[in-house]
């Protein structure tokens, strides 16, 4: 249940912000060939977040373990989300017009390195997935 909420809660907003899904004036999913990889990365990040975050919530609640892994997985998700928020969209305009030149530089960086940042995000989520899986299986065996 939590996984489904996280997946759809990330996938739809990120796809809308990145202009892969449009709702007005008609609902349409539009992925061009040149942006197919970017769309696949959003899908992968949402999927991995939906697996990794609930696993860590379980780890914290049931096994009473440290919060460092969920912190890392959230950082992974946030990198993906930030790089995915299209700079030319309303989010970019809001950030640049509110926070000025520094925000403009950050937006430019996020846009210019969108694909590598999403790959880093996915990499972080994969690392957290494997360490969490290992840690949960070990801890459950001990208990």
């Amino acid at each position: 249940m939590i996984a489904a909420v996280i997946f759809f809660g990330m996938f739809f907003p990120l796809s809308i912000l990145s202009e892969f899904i449009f709702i007005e004036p008609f609902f349409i999913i539009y992925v061009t060939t040149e942006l197919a990889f970017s769309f696949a990365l959003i899908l992968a990040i949402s999927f991995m977040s939906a697996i990794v975050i609930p696993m860590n919530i379980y780890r914290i609640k049931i096994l009473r373990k440290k919060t460092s892994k969920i912190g890392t997985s959230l950082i992974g998700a946030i990198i993906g989300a930030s790089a995915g928020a299209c700079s030319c969209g309303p989010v970019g305009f809001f950030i640049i017009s509110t926070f000025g030149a520094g925000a403009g530089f950050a937006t430019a960086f996020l846009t210019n390195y969108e694909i590598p940042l999403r790959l880093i995000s996915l990499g972080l989520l994969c690392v957290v997935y494997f360490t969490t899986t290992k840690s949960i299986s070990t801890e459950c065996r001990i208990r």
Partner: protein
Amino acid sequence: MNKLIPVIISGIAIALIVGVGFTSYYAQVVEVQELRDKALSIPKAERQLLNLGHSSPVLGSTNAQITIVEFGDYQCEMCHMWFHNTRGAIIDNYVDTGKVNIIFVDLAFLGSDSPIAAQATHCANEQGKYWEYHSILYYKQEGIDNGWASKSMLKEYANELKLNSNQFADCIDSGKYAKNIQDSYNLAGQLMEYPSTPTFYLFNHQSGVVEKISGAQPFSVFVKTIDSML
């Protein structure tokens, strides 16, 4: 407690990104509804705002029934996408047949090179090559503020189009169109609560109906919208 801080900060940041995105999206939906409601009451003078001197020249027949007004930024990746994937089909099917014309309004906000690139198109317009220069910028686009739209590169593109290089250089160095670009930016602020690029306003000059399309949407969306307005 200290370990929770990055989690809280990350959560707030994600919530902020998603929140701003959805708030702006909701505002756009409301704005479109209001536009539809008010379409017939928009005074002609207000619609003529879109024909102010600081926008582009008209692409297509000046007698076309529908005008598409594009708000765009030359460094915007999505404007580039729209230019390469949708614009050509609109020109072939609607502009060349005299049903639609296109006006481009600069909404130059993405970095310091954006306003300069926008000014350069108006300098090219002095030599009658606005749309050629507009197109060359969308063919050359490579990101935001990474040099492709620097003044020296903009002058090179002018040479490629065989513009008078001295006249072009004087124009761009003087910054004589800077105020025009700022006026266009302000116009976008008046029209849109949360401006973004590309944004399209479709005006039917006969019925007064106005439709708005946000984002680099596919040709099929424009076909449905335009055909419903004709």
